[in-house]
């Protein structure tokens, strides 16, 4: 499979009063056609910024400090705004966390859909409307003709997120970045939307980067998973491998803190300590203050190492039940 998206050594910094914050620091991963990559990590670990950087939507005081984003074989870093604009919404799309605020409250749904089509293609208003209508029907919105004339506040949260997904799908992009799109929804709706998106993406071969802090979502949706901590990628691999045999202590902690049916009653194991502030990261491994395996050597920064099964981990002491090293 050819890579639709190849991110390498991406770094995003924010110039703030506390100095330069490295919100994303040397992140690399790739996504192939039809593949679903889950990007997980606690809040503040740099997932959204990674997604926005790929889309070219980082605003001051943020800045892409280094790295490369190759999309469909084309380097995006350093491309002018017009080129990026013509890719956004057409070849690559993004949906956001809060469906209550992603749609413009004073514009009708048809306006917001038709403008997306006509931003990229010279088509008549009528043709665009028909396409918008079909897109709504495809994401499971009943009586789409009527709903086109409605305003966002006339939809429920789940329905609004469907509209956003329909908008993302309008041009049949090869990549969709979904930034926690189901986090704000209740569990039933979340499950419905997940399975629908999975079907739609599989049908069209669209690659998905699904950002979430919820490992159960990753388990049910993703092919591969990448785990971020304090702006860095700490572990990456096939979902089945990573979830059953996490190599990194942070990944292990995340998995153990997921509530699950067969462990009901027993207290959840929380990762001790707090997410560090980017302004004062510890020297060496950023996870060190919270890590039970930490030793002297962890005072140096661990690099990303390859392991069997195409896995990568950033740790001096990965779990050893799996013959590591490379």
């Amino acid at each position: 499979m050819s890579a639709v998206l190849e991110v390498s050594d991406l770094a995003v910094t924010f110039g703030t009063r506390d100095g330069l914050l490295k919100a994303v620091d040397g992140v690399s991963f790739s996504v192939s056609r039809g593949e679903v990559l889950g990007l997980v990590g606690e809040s503040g670990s740099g997932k959204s910024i990674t997604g926005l950087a790929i889309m070219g939507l980082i605003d001051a005081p943020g800045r892409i400090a280094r790295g490369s984003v190759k999309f469909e074989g084309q380097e995006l870093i350093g491309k002018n705004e017009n080129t990026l604009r013509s890719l956004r919404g057409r070849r690559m799309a993004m949906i956001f966390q809060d469906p209550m605020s992603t749609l413009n409250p004073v514009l009708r749904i048809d306006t917001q859909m038709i403008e997306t089509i006509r931003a990229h293609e010279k088509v008549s208003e009528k043709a665009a409307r028909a396409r918008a209508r079909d897109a709504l029907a495809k994401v499971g919105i009943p009586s789409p003709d009527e709903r086109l004339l409605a305003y966002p506040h006339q939809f429920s949260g789940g329905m609004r997120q469907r509209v956003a997904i329909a908008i993302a799908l309008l041009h049949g992009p090869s990549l969709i970045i979904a930034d926690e799109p189901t986090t704000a929804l209740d569990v039933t709706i979340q499950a419905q939307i997940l399975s629908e998106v999975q079907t739609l993406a599989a049908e069209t071969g669209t690659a998905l980067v699904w950002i979430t802090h919820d490992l159960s979502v990753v388990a049910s949706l993703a092919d591969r998973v990448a785990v971020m901590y304090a702006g860095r990628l700490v572990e990456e691999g096939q979902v089945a491998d990573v979830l059953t045999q996490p190599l990194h202590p942070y990944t292990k902690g995340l998995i153990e803190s997921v509530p699950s049916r067969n462990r009901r009653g027993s207290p959840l194991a929380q990762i001790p300590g707090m997410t560090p502030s980017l302004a004062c990261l510890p020297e060496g491994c950023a996870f060190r203050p919270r890590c039970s395996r930490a030793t002297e050597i962890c005072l140096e920064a661990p690099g990303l190492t390859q392991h069997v099964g195409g896995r990568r981990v950033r740790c001096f002491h990965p779990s050893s039940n799996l013959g590591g090293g490379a």
Partner: protein
Amino acid sequence: MLVYIIRRLGQGALVVSVMASVVFLAMYAVGNPVDVLAPPDASDAEKLLIARELGLDKPLWDQFFVFIGNALHGDLGKSFVYNEPTLQLILQRLPATLELAVTALTLAIAIGIPLGLYAGLKSESWFSRIVMSGSILGFSLPNFWIGMMLILLFSVQLKWLPAGGRGETVNILGVPLSFLTWDGLRHLLLPALTMSIYKAALIVRLVRAATRETVMQEYVRFARAKGLSRQRIVLVHILKNIMLPVVTVIGLEFGAILAFAVVTESVFAYPGMGKLLIDSINHLDRPVVVAYLMFTAFLFVIINFVVDLIYAVIDPRVSLVEAKG
């Protein structure tokens, strides 16, 4: 909708009648109009005659009830000075003031919205800083001072524009309008500019604040992620959201301009309603003052009503049917 209109009218009627009573009594307390109206050498007998003619010889409460009785029949009395129905006097002056207010507000909007939008989008640029400093100046300079400076500069020094009065008018459907003639426009420009500076400063700051808040909204980010042009994002997505607070303020300011054109009209000797009010207060012409204030309160009620209607049109979330208060 009907309930809404009836409630609105009820509130309006209450405001107007309370205000009329207060002003009536206050004007009584200020002084005796007969002293002003009668020639300086008039004898007491002559003064009594004038007072009797105007109904001013009766006790206060009698005068008040006569006034209320007439007002309920739509008769707001006659001017002591002009001996004409007050409402007619006011309505004769209305077009001039209306014209001035509309011109001033149009100028304020034409200056305020683009500058505010720019200052909100590019808040770090030096031009935005200049705009914001300028708006503070526009806020703090008193109206009459701006008016006099403009007269000094454009009329006295440069001799480009007339210093006062209303220019040539043409009658459109019986209404004398001056903005359709070159001479009228020239007379209109300075007073309108004087009144618009404060409003423009207000609109600049309002639009800038709203813009800064709006650009951070998730829907703006989503609009960018859709690949829309910057132009479309600013002129449709951002501007339409900004119009909500702007319309409210513009509506209120329109009422304020109409009601308080007094100062500017005096500075420019512009024959509008404000000038009429000042003259009437000086002459203790109570019926005109009372009718003027009732009429202005009525205008406020109408304007608020229209603002609500416009609001409902541009904000789909607002529905007049379930409007609360």
